[in-house]
C-alpha cells in the first residue's frame, strides 16, 4: 500500500474517531452506572470500525440514519462531545435540547437524520432521503445503519424493493454484532442476510466490521457508484458489541460466554488492530498514539464535567417544538 501525506491524515483521523467513540462510551457507561444519567442506553463499544469506516467515506452533505445504539454513528458523522453529553443528561445545550436523549441523539447539521428507537424504524426515512436526492438531482448518498435484529422487520423488504426499483442512492449497512437484543442472530434470522438484499437484485457484500480500512475502502467504492445512480447497495458488517444489549445487561452468560467476549476484545478489537498497523507502517509512534489517547480522554472528561454543570431546559420548553409554526402548543 502506497502511503501519501493525505492518506496519513486520513488514517490518523480514523484512529482518532474510533478512539473518541470508545472514550465517549466509557464515560457514558460510567455516567449511567453512577446513576447520573437518566433512562436507558446502549453501548457502541466494539463496533467502532463500522461507523468510522463508513462515515469517513461520506461527505458532510451525505445523510445517515442511526439506531438506538447510535452514539458511535453520531461521533463518526462529526458531532462534538459537549453537545452529546448534554443530550445524554437531558440538558438544554444537547443536540436535541434534551428532548431526545441517548436513543435519539443526532447532530442534525452534519447530515445525521436522527437515531431511531424503533428497531428498523429508520429504513423508510433513509430510503426517502435517497428519494429526495434523486428527485431534486442532488448527488447525496444516504447510509442506513441498522442491526441484524432489524432484518426481521417487514419495512426493510418494502423499502429495499422500492429502492431497487427506482435505483435510489442508499446503502443499507447491517451491523451484524451477532445478537438481536438477548438472542443469538442465528436463532432469529433464517438463511443468509446478504441473500435477502440479493433477492431484490441489490448488490450485497459481507465484510469484516473490525477492519476499519476494509470497511472504508468498500464504502468509498459503493458511495461513488451510488452517486452515479448505480445504487442501492447492501453491506453486512461482521462486528461485536462488548457490552450487553443495554447498560445493565450484565448477567448475560445465558446467551453468550465470557470466553467469546474475551476472544473478541483481546484478538479482534478494531482499535488495537488498527493501532498496531499504524505503528507497523510507521504512520505514528506509540508515543504519538498515547498522546492522542490522553488528549481524547481529557476532552471527554471535560465534556462530561461541562454537561454535568450545564442547566436543564426551562420547563416552558415542554410544549415547544410540537409544531413548527406554534411556539407553545398548549398556550
Amino acid at each position, binding site marked *: 500500500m502506497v502511503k501519501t501525506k493525505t492518506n496519513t491524515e486520513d488514517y490518523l483521523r480514523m484512529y482518532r474517531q474510533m478512539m473518541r467513540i470508545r472514550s465517549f462510551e466509557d464515560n457514558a457507561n460510567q455516567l449511567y452506572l*453512577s446513576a447520573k444519567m437518566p433512562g436507558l442506553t446502549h453501548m457502541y463499544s466494539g463496533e467502532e470500525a463500522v461507523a468510522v469506516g463508513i462515515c469517513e467515506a461520506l461527505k458532510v452533505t451525505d445523510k445517515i440514519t442511526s439506531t438506538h445504539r447510535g452514539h458511535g454513528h453520531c461521533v463518526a458523522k462529526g458531532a462534538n462531545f459537549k453537545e452529546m453529553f448534554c443530550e445524554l*443528561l437531558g440538558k438544554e445545550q444537547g443536540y436535541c435540547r434534551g428532548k431526545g436523549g441517548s436513543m435519539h441523539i443526532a447532530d442534525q447539521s452534519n447530515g445525521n437524520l436522527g437515531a431511531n428507537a424503533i428497531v428498523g424504524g429508520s429504513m423508510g426515512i433513509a430510503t426517502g432521503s435517497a428519494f429526495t436526492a434523486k428527485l431534486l438531482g442532488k448527488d447525496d448518498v444516504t447510509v442506513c445503519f441498522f442491526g441484524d435484529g432489524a432484518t426481521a422487520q417487514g419495512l426493510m423488504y418494502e423499502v429495499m424493493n422500492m429502492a431497487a426499483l427506482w435505483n435510489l442512492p442508499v446503502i443499507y449497512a447491517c451491523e451484524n454484532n451477532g445478537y438481536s437484543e438477548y438472542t443469538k442472530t442465528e436463532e432469529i434470522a433464517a438463511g443468509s442476510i446478504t441473500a435477502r438484499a440479493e433477492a431484490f437484485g441489490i448488490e450485497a457484500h459481507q465484510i469484516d466490521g473490525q477492519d476499519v480500512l476494509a470497511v472504508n475502502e468498500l464504502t468509498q467504492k459503493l458511495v461513488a457508484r451510488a452517486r452515479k445512480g448505480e445504487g442501492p447497495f447492501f453491506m453486512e458488517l461482521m462486528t461485536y458489541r462488548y457490552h450487553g444489549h443495554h447498560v445493565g445487561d450484565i*448477567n448475560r452468560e445465558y446467551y453468550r460466554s465470557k470466553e467469546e467476549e474475551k476472544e473478541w476484545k483481546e484478538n479482534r478489537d478494531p482499535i488495537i488492530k488498527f493501532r498496531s498497523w499504524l505503528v507497523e507502517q510507521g504512520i505514528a509512534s506509540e508515543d504519538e498514539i498515547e498522546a492522542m489517547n490522553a488528549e481524547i480522554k481529557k476532552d471527554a472528561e471535560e465534556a462530561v464535567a461541562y454537561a454535568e454543570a450545564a442547566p436543564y431546559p426551562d420547563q416552558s420548553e415542554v410544549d415547544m417544538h410540537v409544531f413548527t409554526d406554534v411556539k407553545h402548543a398548549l398556550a
Partner: protein
Amino acid sequence: MPHEVIMPALGMTQDTGKIVSWLKSTGDPVKAGDALFEVETDKAVMEVESPAAGYLTDVQAEAGADVPVGQVIALVSETAESSDTVEKATADTGGGDETLLPKGKAVIMPALGMAQDTGVIVAWHKGLGDQVAAGDILFEVETDKATMEVEAGVDGFVAALLAEVSEEAPVGDTIAIISAEAPTHPVQRSISDGGAPKPAATPDSAPKAEAKKVPKPAPAPKPGGKAPAVNSPIKPSGGSILASPKARRLALEQGLDLNRLVKAGHPQPFHVADLEVLKAMPVQAVEAAVSHSRRLTANLLTDGFAEFAEWAAENANLNDASALLAGLVAASLGHDKATIAVESFGQSRVYNVPVGAFSNITKTEEDTAPDLILRDLRMSRVSTVRLGAENAPVLTLTTAKGGVCITLECAGHHLSASKSVSLLSEFASRMEQPLRHLL
C-alpha cells in the same frame, strides 16, 4: 486519585442493590474488570467489576446491606492504604421507617358535632417540646360547623405533634402526645406523609423517577350536602334542586330563589325557561328581617344534675338521664309542651315533654324539628363553644372548674333578649339544684 466503586444502576426500575458478598477484601490488589462483589437487584444476582486497577480500600457497605444506586461503596486506590475520603455509607438496613413515638398521653381529635367524621387543625397553640398545663389551649379545630379551642387535658410536655395545620384528622385519631417528662426525641409528622417521619433530604441526582414520588395530597374535605339523586326526574322538596348550570347562574345573578319553584311543584330539572315562571310568581312577604345571633353563658360552681339523676332513678324509676335533662329544659322554657333534642356522645334523642310529671316524657322520631337543642359536652375536652345560631336555640353544657358552664346560642328571632336571659337563668338554677325546683 482513587477510583470510586459505585452501586450500579442495573435494572430499569431499580433504586437500591443488595450486596450479596464481597469477592475481594480490603487491601486486595485488583485489576480493571475483576469481579469485586455480587449484587442482587430485583432481577438477579450479578457480579460487578472493578472500574480500574489498584487496591480495594475504604469498603463502606457489608454483605447484606441495601445500598442506593449511585452511592460510593468502596475505592480502588493506588496503594492498599485507606484514604478515608469516603463518608460511611448509610446503608438502609430495613425497618428503620417505624421510628418509635415518645411515651405519654395521646391527645385525640375530639368528636364535636353530630355528623362529624373529621376535624381540621386550624392552629397549634403549643410547640414541640413546650410545657403544658391541663387547662392550656393546645389547639384549635374546625368542624363542619365552627372553630373551637381544645385544651391539653393533662399536664406535661408536647412530645409529639402528628398532624399539621390545615390537615384533616379523623375523629378518634391520635394527633399529639403529651409526655410526663421533657421529651428527648420529640416527633413531628404530618398526616399527608402517612405519619411517617419526614425523610432526610436526598442528594441531588438525575431526576429519574421523581414523578412517582409526588406526595399524596391531603384528603379533600367531604362535601357537606347529600349527593343529588340524579335518576329521579322529580325531586321531593327539601333535597337538592335539579337545574341546568345556566339556570342556576342566572338565578344567582338575578336573586331568584329556585326553592320557590320547588314549593310550587314546578317539574324539575329547571332550565332557563323556568326562570320566567319563577319571575311571574307573586312576590312573597319579605322574610323576617335579618336576625342577629345571641350568645349567653352561665357558670355554675356545682353541677347538681348527677345527684338528681341518681335520686330519680332510685325513687321514681326514671332511668333516662337525657329525658330528665329534656324535662329541665322544657320547664325552663315555660311552654305547655315542648320538643327537646338532647345530643350527647354523638347521639341525638328527641323528646316530647308535656307539662307535669317527668314520667310523661316520651321519646319521639329523630327527625322531628325540636323547639330547643341541648348539647351535652361535659364529657369532652371542649371548654368554650361559639357555634353560631342553628335552626333552634341551643343550650351547650361544658365542664368548668369543678362545675358546669352553660352556653345559650340562638338566632335573634328564636328568642327575644329578655326571653333568652330568663331561659338561661331558669335552666342554670335548675341545673344547680334540680330537686328544689321540682319540689
